[in-house]
């Protein structure tokens, strides 16, 4: 079995943002040479997510606004304390929780060297604590 791992980065520009990474994932699949297998997309952070949805701005806005409604910033979070290992306050519990709701990964099959996905499915990197330079992995497994 062939295993191909690509480490990719993205500069996010706002506190919350959905970034379409579908083309980047397809490119890694093509570069991998894998004809039949699966591709995993995994974020490397705890205040980001990977999700799949229809790639239109209204749904991106709805996703962000729903995450904000489900996890408001101003609640009484235990994380709002000094973190000596970080040298700063943990003021971003809501960012961690919003990221958790989107999940950290997604997976698609590969057939005849192509990503198999629905026509409206878009792969998103979800920023919940930006702006920051972020990293994610695309791992292709197969033959």
């Amino acid at each position, binding site marked *: 079995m062939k295993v191909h791992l690509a480490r990719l980065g993205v*500069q996010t*520009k*706002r*506190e919350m943002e959905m970034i379409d990474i579908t083309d980047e994932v397809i490119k890694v699949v093509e570069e991998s040479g894998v004809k039949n297998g699966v591709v995993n997309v995994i974020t490397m952070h705890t205040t980001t997510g990977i999700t799949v949805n229809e790639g239109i701005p209204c749904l991106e806005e709805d996703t962000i606004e729903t995450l904000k409604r489900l996890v408001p910033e*101003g609640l009484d979070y235990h994380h*709002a*304390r*000094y*973190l000596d*290992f*970080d*040298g*700063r*306050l943990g*003021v971003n519990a809501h960012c961690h929780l919003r990221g958790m709701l989107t999940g950290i990964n997604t997976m698609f099959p590969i057939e005849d060297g192509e990503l198999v996905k629905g026509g409206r499915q878009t792969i998103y990197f979800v920023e919940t604590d*930006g*702006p*920051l*330079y972020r990293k994610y992995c695309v791992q292709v497994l197969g033959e």
Partner: protein
Amino acid sequence: MIDVHTHPVLVEEIMEKDDQMLRVVREVFGLGNRAQPLETFLLHMEDAGIDVSVIHPIDCTSTRGDKIYSNEQIAELVDMAGGKFIGFASVDPHSDRAGEDLEGAVRDLGLKGLKLAPSIQEFSPDDEKLFPLYERALDLGIPIMMHSGVSFEPNTRIRQCHPMLLEPVAAKYPDLRICIAHFGWPWVEETAALLLKYPNLYADTSCLYFDTPQEFIQFTFNGQIPTTWIERSLRNQVMFGSNFPRIEMGKMVQAVMDLGFTEGAKSLIFGGNAERFIGI
């Protein structure tokens, strides 16, 4: 808007050229976050509505054997940021060359002020050994950003950061502009008293030690002292500072805005006072 208190310690472009800096940031400055491209710093400024950030190094050569960014690195960042940074210098206060180094940083590198940290540089602000350095700053016409109050850096002491230790300096040099960083927290009443008595003293809002920015700024400026003290009496001496990247500047801007100052006071706190303090 001007943020008078930031530390550009996580800028990737500088770290890539200095193989010791990540260790210094972790072990000496005590910050665990990852390095980021300069663009991230500038995006945080944009997000917060900050036009200009003052960036500070700390020269702790005598006490730690390191500099948390050199003056040359600060000057390099100022050049890279296209007018969005104002650089302050830092010199080793225990060095016989401190005054000359400061003059070089101002005249040759174009830095606009002096950053001192009694905590990590291990001195007492009222020690007369420092007075020649203060006089050099006065001669150069530059202000001093003096760390005050609690320090996050490992193995540092709070006592020598008491703002009252600045009183003899403020009294002896009435034309020397000094900012009591972090509002001298927890000695907020003492800082307010010093500002009331010495018009050459300033203080910045970059204090966040417990809870959230919203909660802690309310506690400090609408609890430890009433907001009216700043609104009515100290509005010409209080400056916005965030302490980025120990906290995102946008969160601190919002917390200070939520104190409900009048438009006139906000204009001073978020810009006018910093312009006068720095001399721009």
